[in-house]
Every structure is written in structure tokens, then in C-alpha cells.
């Protein structure tokens, strides 16, 4: 059964889109990630124009992150003050990102930059994840205790000025690195259509030393507002949010996620991370191949897209 996507301007098989949404939802539930970094490349592989894939991906992340955020809010594992500081950076970053996005689109380099950024980020993150989990599995096999974290060492981040006390997180931290992190994630959200949790969570834990129990909830708080903002601004400037496509992905995604969570609870952490690392690497590799393979036609035509 085919369905016409009004903004992407093409007919697609509804079952493929449903399957894509369910599969990514399942994986995001299993691994506890937003799934934007898988949905956007998959849509591009299925010939959805990258400009639509990115904007629609951001919209889909709103849906897949909201239930998690609500849970964390109820449990009180969400630092609203810290989240707000992150959000200030995030919204600024998203605004700058969309400006860059429109500029790249006008000069015809948008598709290339989206692909390149995905290749770089997926390659790096996937590689690191795989390495780390393999090391962890080896240690587990040799019955060694996990490598202890170097204590006491004053990190450069903690010497920055403008320190603020975040009661919920029980930390006293400069707002500069928090705003900067939010800003960087905001740019990624608007150009890549991702929530950015896969970068934000490790950065908050290892770089900012924020207690693990509030990290996920707080990052989800920032993700929801930044992706919602990005969706609205993308719709207003690039007219590229496909509500039909987004809705199919969302429905399939939230259902898939429920089953993913159940399977995820049965698997061990290192195995999960190794699997996710492999998957991320594979998607990155597929995008990298598309960049170097000779295209079917080296010419392309765009009619009246910018006015």
C-alpha cells in the first residue's frame, strides 16, 4: 500500500516506513537512545530528500523522548535548573544551526554536509562504543574489576568562572561549559535531525562530572525542547517537516520502543553497547559508501525551491 508524502513529494510504501519506525523504536527502547541518528540516515537511504529527513527526524525525536522525560520528571531524576541552562545554549545553537542549514541548502551543499557529519559522528561514536564495550567484555572474562576512575584530579572544566550551584545535581559548576555543550547539541539537532543524547550523556558524565542519576532525565528535558523548537523553525523557514511521514514513524516508533525496553532488560550492558556500536558503524559506513560511489547522474536540477 503506497501513501503520498505531501512535503517529501513522493509516494512510499507505508509498510516500509512503519517497519523503519518500529525497528528504530525497538532499538531506541533497547539501548535507551532517541533514535534520531538512525531514523534520518534510514530515510535518506529510502530516497527521502535529506532536507525533509532531517526536519522530520527532529519531529519524531520529540515523540520518542517525551515518555522518558515524563518518567524522569515523576521520579525526580531531572534537574530543571541545569536543564534550563543547557536549553539556553541549545535554543541558541538550534537557531544558528538552522541558519547554517538554510545557507547550505541555498548553495547546494546541504546533502553533502549532512552525510559528512553523519559519517564523522557515527564513525567516531560507533567506534568508541565498540572499543569500550570490547574492553569491558575482556575485563569481565578475566574477572578483573572495572578500571577505577582517577579521583581527586581537578578537571579544567571546574576552573572556569561564572559558577552556579545546582542543588538537585549537587554540583557547583560554571555555566560556560554547560551552555557550550547545549549550543553544540542544538547545532547537531538542527543540521542532523538528532536529539543528540548519544553525545550529550557521555559529555555530561565524563566532562562535566554531573551525577549519573540526573543525566538522562536532564538531557531528555533539553532534547524535547530543542527538537520541538527545531521542528517549528524548520517548518517556518524550510517548509520541510512532513507531518504524514513523522506521524507514521512516531506511532510505529513508540510501540516498537515498548518491546525494545523489555528485550534490553534481558541483555547485558557491554553486549548491548557492542551491538549498538556495530549498528552505528554500519549506518555510518553505508553513508560513507554513498559519498564515494559514482552517482547515477552527476547533474541534478532544482526548480524554484528557494522562493
Amino acid at each position: 500500500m503506497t501513501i503520498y508524502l505531501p512535503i517529501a513529494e513522493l509516494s512510499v510504501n507505508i509498510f516500509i516506513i512503519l517497519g523503519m519506525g518500529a525497528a528504530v523504536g525497538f532499538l531506541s527502547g533497547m539501548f535507551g537512545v532517541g533514535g534520531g541518528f538512525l531514523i534520518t540516515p534510514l530515510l535518506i537511504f529510502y530516497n527521502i530528500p535529506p532536507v525533509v529527513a532531517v526536519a522530520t527526524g527532529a519531529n519524531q525525536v520529540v515523540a520518542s523522548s517525551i515518555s522518558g522525560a515524563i518518567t524522569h520528571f515523576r521520579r525526580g531524576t531531572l534537574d530543571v535548573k541545569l536543564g534550563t541552562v543547557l536549553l539556553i545554549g541549545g535554543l541558541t545553537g538550534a537557531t544558528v544551526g538552522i541558519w547554517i542549514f538554510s545557507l547550505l541548502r541555498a548553495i547546494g551543499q546541504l546533502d553533502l554536509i549532512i552525510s559528512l557529519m553523519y559519517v564523522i559522528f557515527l564513525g567516531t561514536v560507533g567506534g568508541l562504543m565498540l572499543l569500550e564495550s570490547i574492553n569491558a567484555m575482556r575485563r569481565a572474562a578475566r574477572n578483573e574489576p572495572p578500571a577505577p576512575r582517577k579521583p581527586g584530579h581537578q578537571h579544567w572544566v571546574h576552573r572556569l568562572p561564572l559558577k552556579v550551584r545546582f542543588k538537585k545535581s549537587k554540583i557547583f559548576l560554571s555555566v560556560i561549559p554547560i551552555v557550550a555543550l547545549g549550543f553544540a547539541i542544538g547545532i547537531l539537532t538542527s543540521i542532523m535531525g538528532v536529539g543528540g543524547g548519544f553525545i550529550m550523556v557521555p559529555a555530561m558524565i565524563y566532562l562535566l562530572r554531573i551525577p549519573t542519576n540526573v543525566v538522562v532525565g536532564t538531557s531528555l528535558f533539553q532534547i524535547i525542547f530543542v527538537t520541538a523548537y527545531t521542528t517549528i523553525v524548520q517548518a517556518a523557514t524550510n517548509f520541510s517537516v512532513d507531518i504524514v511521514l513523522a506521524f507514521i514513524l512516531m506511532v510505529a516508533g513508540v510501540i516498537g520502543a515498548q518491546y525494545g525496553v523489555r528485550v534490553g532488560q534481558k541483555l547485558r550492558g557491554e553486549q548491548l553497547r557492542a551491538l549498538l556500536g556495530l549498528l552505528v558503524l554500519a549506518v555510518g559506513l553505508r553513508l560513507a559508501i554513498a559519498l564515494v560511489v559514482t552517482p547515477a547522474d552527476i547533474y541534478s536540477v532544482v526548480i524554484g525551491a528557494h522562493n
Partner: protein
Amino acid sequence: MRLLAAVLTLLCLLPAAAGAQWLPGQSTEAVREGLEIGTSTSEIAITSDFHGADLTIFGALSNTDQLLLAIGQYDVVVVLEGPRQDATVRKKERVFGIWVNTRSMTFESVPHSYSMSSSRMIDDLTTPLELTDQGIGIDHIPLTPVGFVGDGSNLGEFRDAFRRLQQGGGFYDRNPSGVRFVSSNLFKASLRLPANIPNGVHTVRAYLFKSGTLITEESLPLRVIKTGIEQTITDAAHGQPILYGCAAVLLAVITGWGASLIFRKD
């Protein structure tokens, strides 16, 4: 799907005397040949499951020279021209192993779609110069680069690429046997409407050639309107973009929240 047969029979049944009074080839000085075309509607509504169709246009010639008509010296070309917009053609080149758009050219005000039907190959019915002058035919549509300052050496390759891509995408189409005379003065032209026909005001143009010379042309507007829920969404996305964006977010919030309520483990 609706079949788009726009039919009109023209009333102008020609003055019977027309041909007989003049010798062959002299008619132009006295009475010019006339050309009239018509469609049954000035508006075509297309639903979202539209897969392309043929549009039939009827037309009539008047004041024709019977002898020239008999030996096939009259030719008719009918064109359905889509709304005009600027078009940008980009060319990729390999840069450090990666395919990158390196050069581009924007053509001014070109028809988004162009479907042509003629009584024979247009290259046979007149000279290329005449076609270029009038801008008739896919190969002769004027393609003027915007703000062009280069040496013009690659103008040809970008023009060729544009024509090839537009034909490949089904937007530009030609049918050298699409115009048929149903009687000596009445003709029927079938034009292809592509599945992805652009919304907006199209123009039907008909050209009458006599012995390879363009004598007269006629045009009439034809509005193409897409209907259905998909078009409503497209209109909302462009007409009320902020509201549309907010609706997309609201939909996401409801879906996400709804799912967490339904699947909540109590």
C-alpha cells in the same frame, strides 16, 4: 482517478468558400489562416493518487487553402506549458574521492513542465532557426542563465543536462504524432500530463505552420489544482508554517504521551 478528457468541438465551421477563391500559396496576402483551440474546462482537479493522464485538445483551422491542406502543407504543434520558475542545475565532481556539487547554473523563468504534441517531427516541419526564434520544442526552449558572467563554454552541457533531466523525470515530453486531423480542418491533440504535474496555471499553446513558416498561434490558460488531504497539508505547510510546525510538535507530544499512558506498568 478522473480521466481528463477535456473536449470541445469548435463551432467555427469554416466558410466554405475559403479555399476555392485563391490560388495555392497566395492566400496569406488576402485572408490569413485562423486557428482556434478549446478545452471543455479551464481547470483540472487532480487527486493525490493521480498517475498521469492524457489531455485532449480540439482545434480548428479556418481560411485554409484546400490544395495546400490536401498535400499536407499545414502543420500544427500544441504545447502544454507549466508554470514558469527559475531552475538550478548542479554538477558534481570528485573532490578528494567524494562527489561534491562544484558548479551550478540557474536558468531564468523556465517552464516547470512542457508537453508537446505535433502533426509530425517538429524538426521536419520547419527550420531550427524558426523553432529557436519562437522557442518551440524541448530543444528550443530558451534557457537563459541568471547573472551569467562566465565564458559560456559550459553553457551547452548545463542546458543539455537540464533538458535530459526534465525528460527523464517525465516533466518534458514530446509526441510527434499526437496531433491528428479528424477532418480537413478539425484537429485533435493529445498531451501527456505527468504524474507529478506541478500545481498552478499552465498554458496551452497551439502553433500553425504553413509550408514551414509559423503563421499564427493561439493560447489559453489551464489551471491545475491538486485536491485532497495531501494538498491541504501542503497548503498548510506553506501558508501557515508556524501553526503547522506547532501542530507537528503537538502531534508528537500526544503520540509520545499517549503511548506512555497506554503501556504504563501499574
